């Protein structure tokens, strides 16, 4: 079965540079989520998009922005990179699954992009 695709898998940047991470959701999935996992940490939710509109916002720094495109892929743009941004960045996707008034989707995660800021 097709999975979530993330590119690049590894990225090395200098401080104050910019980076763009890409995510291609599972076919027919309409929702994309971004997470950041620091070394030895649990994943922290950054932001999500449903049908190309921002849906929920977590602990995403103002230096980061993201969007979802018409083909449902998403990009996470990171500017003025800091040493502390070094982490594994996961994208997850899901398909809207309603159970009454609320969503009950399962989020499927990609392999992640390992960002190293020097």
């Amino acid at each position, binding site marked *: 079965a097709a999975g*979530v695709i993330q590119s690049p898998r590894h990225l090395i940047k200098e401080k104050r540079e910019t980076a763009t991470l890409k995510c291609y959701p599972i076919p027919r999935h309409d*929702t994309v*989520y971004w*997470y950041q996992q620091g070394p030895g*940490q*649990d*994943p*922290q*939710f*950054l*932001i*999500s*998009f*449903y049908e190309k509109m921002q*849906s*929920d916002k*977590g602990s995403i720094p103002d230096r980061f922005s993201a969007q979802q495109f018409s083909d449902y892929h998403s990009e996470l743009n990171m500017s003025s990179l800091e040493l502390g941004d070094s982490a594994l960045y*996961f994208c*997850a996707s*899901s398909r809207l699954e309603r*159970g009454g008034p*609320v*969503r*009950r*989707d*399962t*989020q*499927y*995660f*990609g*392999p*992640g992009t*390992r960002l190293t800021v020097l």
Partner: protein
Amino acid sequence: AQSVAQPEDQVNVAEGNPLTVKCTYSVSGNPYLFWYVQYPNRGLQFLLKYITGDNLVKGSYGFEAEFNKSQTSFHLKKPSALVSDSALYFCAVHSGGGADGLTFGKGTHLIIQP
């Protein structure tokens, strides 16, 4: 606010023995609970979820989890552990609202000894 606690950083089990990885949660409203497994330098793999219905949820690779509302717990279990089950396990909760992010526990390292 919602939260998840995994009280054990590490669990050691002999191969062939039953295993339990503990998780407790705190949410307002109905809980939507998940277990994921992470192998070194890999993404998170979905194991199982509890939305509603039977308190015993069966998932992938022979894992199951028991939802206990009175104890606000969602412990992961497997009757007979395999060495290949050694990995990092995360419990997560979802508010069930919009496209909300998951809130994860700190993770539990499961080590299966041959």
